[in-house]
């Protein structure tokens, strides 16, 4: 009755180190330090790439050096083509992610809260989850044609399950004492959902969102590769058959950077909405 699973979010009451402050200089310098470390990590990665490409294990014809790729990226950044290609991908991805995440949130909450539904949908969910999006491409093309809509079907499919599962786990993680409290004070369904279940599930949802965001990006590009709607994927295909390795890897860099941006955004949201959570609190001054 008393165990707080440590991964759980609920019980918290300790005079733990204070949470990160909005302004105090110590926090700001910590954040700067973090950014610096992250930048060092990126540099390290670039250096590894550079060395690997120069080592000759793989010919530079097929894997250009990091510096070549970055150089190419910089030139490409000046062209409108790159931006339109990125814009196409980002649009498909954003729509797909939004649809997928909101559907998963709603369904995950409903299924997670109703034991009957949880039991009844269990096998079906497990059955549908591992079906690869690539296998539904013909169906998607049949339903929606060679368009952004077809790509969307593919993009919505896989991340949906990620978020759904995370939401269901999060909902199951509600602290028992906190739950009893809500029940004893006669909190109705809506209030329990709003003030107990969702805050508890929130850390799970955010992790789910981070997983879903990158999977959706991966699938957007894969769909562009396979279906051929415009975007980074199609462009990668063109560079690949040109063949133009620096162009291709410049696009790979762009893709990775998009992923990075999403993560930065998610972290910022997390710092705001999870400021009470031990994982965020702990990073305060100590």
């Amino acid at each position, binding site marked *: 009755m008393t165990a707080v699973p440590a991964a759980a979010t609920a019980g918290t009451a300790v005079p733990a180190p204070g949470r990160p402050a909005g302004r105090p200089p110590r926090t700001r310098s910590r954040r700067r330090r973090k950014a610096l470390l992250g930048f060092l990590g990126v540099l390290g990665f670039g250096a590894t790439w550079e060395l690997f490409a120069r080592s000759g294990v793989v010919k530079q014809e097929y894997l250009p050096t990091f510096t070549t790729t970055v150089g190419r990226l910089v030139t490409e950044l000046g062209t409108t083509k790159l931006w339109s290609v990125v814009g196409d991908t980002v649009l498909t991805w954003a729509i797909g992610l939004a649809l997928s995440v909101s559907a998963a949130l709603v369904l995950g909450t409903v299924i997670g809260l109703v034991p009957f539904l949880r039991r009844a949908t269990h096998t079906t969910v497990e059955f549908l989850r591992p079906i690869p999006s690539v296998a539904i491409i013909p169906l998607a093309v049949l339903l929606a*044609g060679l*368009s952004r809509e077809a790509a969307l079907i593919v993009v919505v499919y896989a991340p949906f399950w990620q978020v759904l599962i995370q939401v269901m786990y999060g909902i199951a993680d509600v602290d028992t004492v906190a739950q009893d409290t809500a029940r004893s004070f006669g909190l109705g369904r809506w209030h329990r959902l709003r003030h107990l279940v969702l805050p508890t599930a929130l850390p799970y949802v955010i992790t789910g969102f981070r997983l879903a965001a990158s999977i959706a990006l991966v699938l957007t590009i894969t769909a562009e590769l*396979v279906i*051929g709607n415009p975007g980074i994927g199609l462009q990668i295909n063109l560079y690949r*058959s040109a063949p*133009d390795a620096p162009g291709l890897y410049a696009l790979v860099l762009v893709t990775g950077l998009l992923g990075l941006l999403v993560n930065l955004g998610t972290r910022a949201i997390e710092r705001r909405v999870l400021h009470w959570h031990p994982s965020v609190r702990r990073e305060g001054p100590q």
Partner: protein
Amino acid sequence: SSDAETEPDAPDTPDTTETDAADQADADPVAITIGALSISETAPLWAAVDAGVFAEHGLDVTVQPIQGGAQAMPALVNGDVDFSVGQPFGALRASLQGLDVKIIANYASSYAEGDDINAVVAPAGSDIASPADLAGKRVAVNSLGAAGDLTISAAVEADGGDPSTIEFVEVAFPDAKAQLEAGNIDAAWVPEPFVSMIVGAGGSVVVYPYQAVLPGLPTLVIQATGSTVADDPELVAKVREAFAAAFAWAAENDDAVRQALVDNLNLPAEAAAGLPLPTFTTDLDRDLIQGLADLAVEHGYFDSAPDLAQVIAE
């Protein structure tokens, strides 16, 4: 009619069927979508559409890029594209599986002699010299169970090798060169421009499998669904005519075709200029298609021979 372009504007000339058709076209062009792969063979289509050749035939054409034959079929079936340019083998196979698809014209053909536009190539220093040497080797094709491995098998057999010992693996055309050099595969079947690139890097052509087995075999054909063929024969005829005109125009305007390669495929201008292209024609050689079907049956690719009368609409 290819001379439509040179005809002066003559709205007041007496009715002839030809100008009537042109008038109607001007007034009310039929919008069609043609699915085509993003490969060099599509260049004449892109160029001719841009130059307005299809518009003169009363067709408002959108070229829809397609990433593979498998995607083209559902798009055809659900009407997302009205016509598509694809490999004849795919059409035969789809038809055998009960898909309502028909070949309405030829699009591009390999060369009956000389340097063909696709080849089995081996890397520099390879001891594979003839088709028979491919036996027991690992050979890459872009997709298994299609015209590539079929014609290679037939060519090896014809050369006295045992095709059943060949290990075919799938490698996308653009990756073949690197894989050959890395030694992951012994030989690869690739089209231009990859043939030239690999040969340029010291590799050698082992065999032109199309030429060796069915010289002049169509590489691409124009397809439509059976219902399009049945419901709108005029449109089909018009498309066929327009393509013929487009190819004729393309033959005269090689620069525009090469420019389409640069524009649509990001090819460097020099590469585009030297790129060998197949023969473009709408004249379909039924015998070659029949030969391909027979070969597929012989090598166990098809369970039964497709009925060409069903597949080809002419």
